[in-house]
């Protein structure tokens, strides 16, 4: 059977492979190559070695957006996960309307980033208007505005994952803890949290990478204003490509650095996750 199957490989993998080449492999390899060249289009590149990479760290806007993004990712990861876990913890208890509330919290997830950006622009500019200011007044306003938006969007998604994790804990474990005289907080810290560790792993991974990769919401809400100070990494790279001629090579080198950052986070996360997970 296996031999016939192998003979049919072209049919099963061919279409995906061709599209994968066009949509990923070729652009990726070309992208790595171009990061070492000076170019304005793909066809007129000249090799410059690591020059572009030196340009990346000489660019003040990039270094700023790197720290700005790191702070953003850390703050959103903590707030989203704590809030999502708390909501999930309460919603697994049986009370009227629990299912309806779940649906409400999840809803913002389906709305796209661009639309979300303008929804929050209305709300935040309305609020800040009371003090005659707007979201683009300073990078700090932009920062907390995007944090609020991101939390609103993602708490429901992470909540759903936490609910699934909490529901997979066998009821007897909690009952026996109660019988042994454990208090509510002891049960929470010593039994529930260790057992939902896989969910915590997945959710922190998703929120960190989402924070680092955020683009649409940033573009719609502040577009980097004032003077590129509220630019997250993805928008900074975009603007290097499309708003500054002559810096395409630097833009591509920034993208490679960005990839390395995301990959390192993924790797560390994976390592930590494996060491922390507890079997039920």
């Amino acid at each position, binding site marked *: 059977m*296996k031999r*016939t*199957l192998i003979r*049919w*490989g072209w*049919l*099963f*993998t061919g*279409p*995906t492979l*061709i*599209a*994968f080449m*066009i*949509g*990923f492999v*070729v*652009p*990726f390899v*070309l*992208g790595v190559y*171009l990061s070492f060249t000076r170019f304005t*289009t*793909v066809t007129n590149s000249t090799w410059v070695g690591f020059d572009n990479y030196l340009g990346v760290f000489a660019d003040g806007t990039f270094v700023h957006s790197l720290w700005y993004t790191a702070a953003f990712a850390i703050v959103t990861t903590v707030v989203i996960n704590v809030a999502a876990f708390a909501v999930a913890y*309460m919603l697994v*208890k*049986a*009370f*009227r*309307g629990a299912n*309806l*509330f779940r649906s*409400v*919290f999840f*809803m913002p997830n*389906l*709305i*796209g980033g*661009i*639309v979300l950006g*303008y*929804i929050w622009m*209305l*709300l935040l500019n*309305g609020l800040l*208007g009371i003090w005659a200011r707007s979201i683009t007044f300073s990078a700090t306003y932009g920062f907390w505005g995007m944090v609020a938006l991101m939390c609103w969007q993602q708490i429901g998604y992470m909540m*759903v*994952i936490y609910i699934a994790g909490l529901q997979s804990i066998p009821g007897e474990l909690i009952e026996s803890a109660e019988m042994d005289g454990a208090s509510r907080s002891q049960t929470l810290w010593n039994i529930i949290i260790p057992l939902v560790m896989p969910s915590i792993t997945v959710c922190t991974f998703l929120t960190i990478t989402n924070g*680092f990769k955020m*683009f*649409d919401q940033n*573009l*719609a809400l502040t577009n980097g204003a004032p003077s590129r100070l509220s630019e997250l990494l993805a928008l900074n*790279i975009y603007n290097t*490509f499309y708003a500054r001629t002559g810096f395409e090579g630097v833009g*591509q080198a920034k*993208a490679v650095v*960005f*990839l390395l950052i995301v*990959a390192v986070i993924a790797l560390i996360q994976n390592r930590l996750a494996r060491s922390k997970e507890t079997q039920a």
Partner: protein
Amino acid sequence: MNKPKHPLLWTIVFTIVSIAYMYPIVLVIINSFKGKVFISSEPFSLPDAETFVGWENYTRGVALTDFFSSFGWSLVITLGSAALILLCTSMTAWWIVRADTRYAKTLYTTFLLNLVVPFQMVMFTLSWLTDFLGLGNPFGLWIIYLGFGAGLAVFIFTGFVKSIPLEIEEAATIDGCGPVRTFFQVVLPIMKPAVITVGILEVMWLWNDYLLPYLTLDLKHYKTIPIAVQYLKGGYGSIDMGAMMGILVLAMIPVIVFYLVSQRHIISGVVAGAVKG
């Protein structure tokens, strides 16, 4: 899990929190019926005799953005790409697991790499290549999306295929089925839950994706809904807030309908995707 002591109290608390949570959406709906000057000056008040403009924001927004054509292209791109992704990657994933050759392993590892690579990495070169190959139309985008979205789909599908017992497929082979019939008549029906999971995740991504279609599509002829919304912003921050509110409401309606219709699948799809991912 443990039962709460005051069920009614929890219901009241969460009712209040839920209403607050939906407030941003309600605010957009309220403002979509107000004249554009009043949206910036008094966003939190309800429309009254002076500020109410009926459907004017909607009709102007639709005219400015050619909204219904964007809606159509969004639908064509999302459904076509999702269908292609589901068909092709489920076949590939099954073949990778069952054939298990060196080629299959290499392919799988490259698909995994696709999972970590942010779009910015291929942004410039992909838009050039799309243009070079003449794929900058909604149908060309099906191929681009199949390519860039393949990683996640293959990853979830292979995880699922590994849990299918081999005996069922062997029985089909003994009954005289070739690989193609085995896949479509035996394996694919078993894979249905995974197909729904991947379908949900892909549709959520495809429908809302902004940058990839923006950079690859020929924008003179085709726009998607996120692109149409962003176009309302115009040069240097001048936004017709009235038209914007109308379009935001129209952009949210399909999403809310999709959610109401397939809520259960969406929630379980997200959970299944998270466990595998």
